[in-house]
């Protein structure tokens, strides 16, 4: 008799659970199904997507690559878009990334906007030319103990049209991310004229997902990248003086700019100031010294701030902004590009402002 109690009890409980599960499945079918939605981008012909996923994901599926470093978790604040219609209210997860004026203008994080109805968005035109590339590593070498240079050959598509100073994103496999990958941004260090290859220079960050991935790349590895991104516009006037100051992996975009200038406008005055700690941190110096011998208009200064007693270093010492202060005399036509660690950039900005440069004349990238 006891047995029948259990049997009837378990049986009816199972029946109940099945019934409820069925109910939830039906509700899910009707509630989580948003049907087809249209995404209109910058007044162009709308894209038709399956509703229900994030705007970032929907755009990604349609080969529109919005920069995003965190994999859709609203922590990097990179995927900023302006939603003109149909995105719903801004979420508490997004508000820390925007000023009040931006919120009023409809700025949102694409990873937090769910496509539930037809939406209209505005994104910088340059995002539309961003492509996804299948690539293969053709060279990978260590420049210093913590700096690696990796060169990718573009396979599909095989050509990239990047402006000088732009960057790419590398798709990094990541088990912790819900999508299984995250993107990490790296400046292009190869010349823009090398349209079939992309080179990056990456510093190893202890525990860093992207830098660890890049540092372990071997020749023939398959890697996916997206790009080009970046707002920097080089002034192409051959008489315009170009000042480059940086440190560490900030070398990547500067190498790109230097080679581009020497190739397209060989007479253009260019000055490179590179700050490092000790002789172990020096790379590309010989390459640039050779270039400086060929081009009288190219000047290169490497300065070491943390020199060891027994070092053979004969060059300048001390922080790099002091050398900029001493040696740089702003000409009439000038452009400035800074790329390096924030304290270095801040010190250089202070020096340049004291020399009469306006804030909007200085382009910088702190990391």
């Amino acid at each position, binding site marked *: 008799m006891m047995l*029948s*109690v259990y049997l009837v009890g378990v049986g*009816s409980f199972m029946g*109940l659970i099945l019934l409820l599960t069925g109910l939830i499945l039906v*509700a*899910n079918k009707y*509630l989580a199904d948003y049907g087809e939605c249209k995404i209109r981008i910058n007044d162009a012909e709308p894209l038709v997507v399956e509703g229900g996923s994030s705007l970032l994901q929907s755009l990604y599926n349609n080969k529109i690559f919005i920069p995003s470093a965190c994999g859709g978790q609203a922590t990097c604040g990179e995927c900023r878009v302006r939603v003109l219609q149909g995105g*719903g209210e801004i*979420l508490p997860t997004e508000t820390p990334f925007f000023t009040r004026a931006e919120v009023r203008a409809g700025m949102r994080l694409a990873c937090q906007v*769910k496509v539930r109805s037809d939406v209209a968005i505005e994104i910088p035109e340059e995002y539309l030319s961003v492509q996804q590339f299948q690539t293969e590593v053709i060279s990978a070498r260590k420049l210093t103990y913590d700096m690696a240079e990796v060169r990718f050959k573009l396979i599909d598509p095989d050509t990239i049209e990047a402006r000088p100073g732009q960057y790419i994103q590398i798709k990094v496999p990541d088990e912790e991310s819900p999508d299984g990958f995250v993107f990490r941004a790296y400046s292009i260090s190869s010349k823009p004229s090398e349209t079939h290859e992309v080179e990056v220079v990456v510093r190893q960050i202890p525990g860093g997902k992207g830098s660890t991935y890049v540092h372990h790349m071997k020749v023939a590895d398959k890697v996916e990248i997206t790009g080009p991104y970046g707002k920097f516009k080089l002034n192409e006037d051959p008489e315009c003086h170009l000042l480059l100051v940086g440190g560490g992996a900030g070398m990547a975009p500067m190498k790109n700019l230097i080679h581009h200038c020497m190739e397209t406008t060989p007479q253009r005055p260019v000055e490179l100031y590179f700050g490092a700690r000790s002789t172990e941190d020096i790379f590309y110096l010989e390459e640039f010294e050779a270039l400086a011998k060929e081009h009288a208009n190219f000047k290169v200064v490497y300065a070491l701030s943390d020199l060891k007693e027994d070092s053979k270093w004969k060059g300048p010492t001390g922080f790099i902004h002091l050398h900029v202060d001493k040696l740089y005399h702003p000409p009439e036509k000038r452009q400035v590009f800074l790329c390096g660690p924030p304290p270095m950039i801040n010190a250089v900005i202070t020096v340049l402002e004291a020399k009469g440069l306006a804030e909007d004349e200085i382009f910088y990238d702190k990391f």
Partner: protein
Amino acid sequence: MSHDVNPLVILVASILTNNILLVYFLGMCSFVAVSKKIETAAGLGAAVIFVLTATTPINWLLNHYFLEDNALAWLVGPHLASKVHLGIFALVFFIAVIAGFVQIVELVVERFSPALYYALGIFLPLITVNCAILGGSLFMVEWKFNFMQSIAYGFGAGAGWALAILVMAGLRKRMRISLVPRGLEGMGITMIVTGVMAMAFMAFNGIVPV
């Protein structure tokens, strides 16, 4: 309370004189946590009303046709039914129904109000373990309601809970500009105000004959 009480009387009683929060103090956890803003309080209140209104009558049906003594007579005949007592499963059955309905509420809220969905956060799925919901079903069994009465009671208990959290949210909005002693800020003053509200609700005693 018994079978002859008009469901409308039960409705009024469960909102005012027998308020599930202010008289029985059930569902305090999310009441304190989500009563900071009127909009979120209204959202959670509506969710609780829905879940209580849906689950109380369903649990009544389950209780009536499966769990009560002799309830299984329609299925296995009176002889066997008198020997099988499924009452021991009552809690499991009730909570399964509640969990199922909370899932549906979650889907609905996420679809129609993502902002509310994020504002409620963990307290939305936690309605499952909101004691007011299970309390509603257990009281309904305890007081031997009939089906119509259980509908009225489910809705009334939910509305009473929503009323209490809304009043609390309104008070807390005003409280932000009043001088609260440092040690009582937040949780402390909320508990005291809840007590005062409960006493105020005692004034409703006697307006309905239950």
